[in-house]
């Protein structure tokens, strides 16, 4: 095995499809969450099942999201929907293109696929301990994703984003006619609406954790590598 690269070595870490999608998707997600919270303000109640309106039992009464969180700032359902539905297309086709590119350039197989050895409880425990000690890189292979990172990215790309997209599609009466199986998959339009909100909350939690870890693991090095592709092995 080759010697590990010493600290300070510049490594080409992110290929252009990954970088392009990362930023395009970051913008789309940011706008989708803001406009989505604006749409939520129109009827801030969540239900399970096929139907749900004012006289029906709501499992969640959402807060009114304040102007500094919503797009547009002032309540405007029509404009929130225009933002949301335009960037929904960016999210969907961006994700499809990224998935295709990442299969072709083997980003998924090479960088994101968890290996059997990494999934052993011992290894998982060691990685959790390393995170708690703010050690995020394996000195032997510093540019490789650690297993918690892999599992998180796989969960977001493979589960949360498809879930938020499919539940979003289920809210469309046109898509309900085109793809009736969507309604059955989620057990009704109002269940899909609840799951859409929950998926958004989970994605928001990911963003908070992701940004925190970017800062903790060297903000500028991380951001630069996502802009230019080049990353410096930390001390």
């Amino acid at each position, binding site marked *: 095995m080759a010697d590990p690269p010493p600290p300070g070595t510049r490594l080409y870490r992110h290929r252009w499809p990954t970088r392009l999608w990362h930023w395009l998707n970051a913008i789309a997600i940011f706008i989708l969450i803001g406009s989505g919270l604006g749409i939520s303000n129109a009827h801030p109640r969540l239900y399970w099942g096929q139907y749900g*309106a004012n006289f029906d039992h709501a499992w969640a009464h959402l807060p009114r999201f304040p102007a500094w969180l919503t797009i547009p700032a002032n309540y405007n359902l029509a404009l929130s929907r225009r933002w949301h539905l335009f960037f929904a297309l960016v999210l969907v086709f961006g994700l499809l293109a990224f998935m295709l590119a990442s299969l072709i350039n083997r980003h998924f197989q090479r960088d994101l696929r968890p290996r059997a050895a990494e999934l052993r409880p011992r290894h998982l425990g060691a990685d959790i301990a390393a995170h708690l000690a703010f050690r995020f890189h394996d000195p032997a292979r510093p540019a490789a994703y650690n297993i918690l990172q892999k599992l998180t990215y796989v969960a977001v790309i493979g589960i949360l984003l498809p879930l938020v997209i499919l539940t979003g599609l289920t809210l469309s009466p*046109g898509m309900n006619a085109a793809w009736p199986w969507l309604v059955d998959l989620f057990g009704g339009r109002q269940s899909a609406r609840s799951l859409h909100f929950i998926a958004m909350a989970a994605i928001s939690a990911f963003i908070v954790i992701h940004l925190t870890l970017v800062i903790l693991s060297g903000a500028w090095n991380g951001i630069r590598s996502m802009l230019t592709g080049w990353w410096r092995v930390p001390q």
Partner: protein
Amino acid sequence: MSLLISRRSLIVGATALLAGCDQVARNSTARAILFKGEDMHRGIQRALMDRDALAREFRPDQRSPIFRSNGTRDPGTPEYETLAAGKFADWRLNVGGLVARPLALALTDLAHLPNRAQITRHDCVEGWSAIAKWQGPTLGSVLKAAGLRDAARYIVFTCADLYGGRPYYESIDLIDAFHPQTILAWALNDRMLPIANGAPCRLRVERQLGYKHAKYLMRVDAVASLAGIGKGRGGYWEDNVDYDWYAGI
């Protein structure tokens, strides 16, 4: 310390970005691009769905216990009050525009045309849904009886209610007009349509959102273009608050 600064700058940055979005939406070019999303969704949906693909229909026991009303709950104009006082016996639905034989249909005429009953879900643009049974003649059979002219492209529905002082109206294209579930409903849950839900007759266009389902129908007109009607965008909400004309999204 640097962590605190970074976090604060992140929040400040995010707020600035959100405000930036409002700036962008005020730019007419950006707005035009943003509003193109509607056409893209319509194109994609129409490509993915059969022309006659049906909206989901439900069992009687799946209906909402209460079907709420929304928008106008009573038009309250003197003309409407008079019609309602006579149990709509004097009400006529005028079918005109680009048709060979203009019609004036009474409620009894609607009941004698080929009728369809369907239990469907009503989806409001705000996010709520309610399931109810609707019955009425298919719009297609009414348009066939009137004889649609070749130049007709859209069907415009004029309502008895004023919304914010302006007459409510809506429009759909011929694909939705001739869809088998598009009906002129005069019954809700096996009873005459209540005033709160659009008596004596409302449109059901089941693959689109609730605001397209015009209530208190007075006129149905076939037209070649939506220009010159209202502000030309095909409906009250489309004209006045930028809702999508294609509400299948």
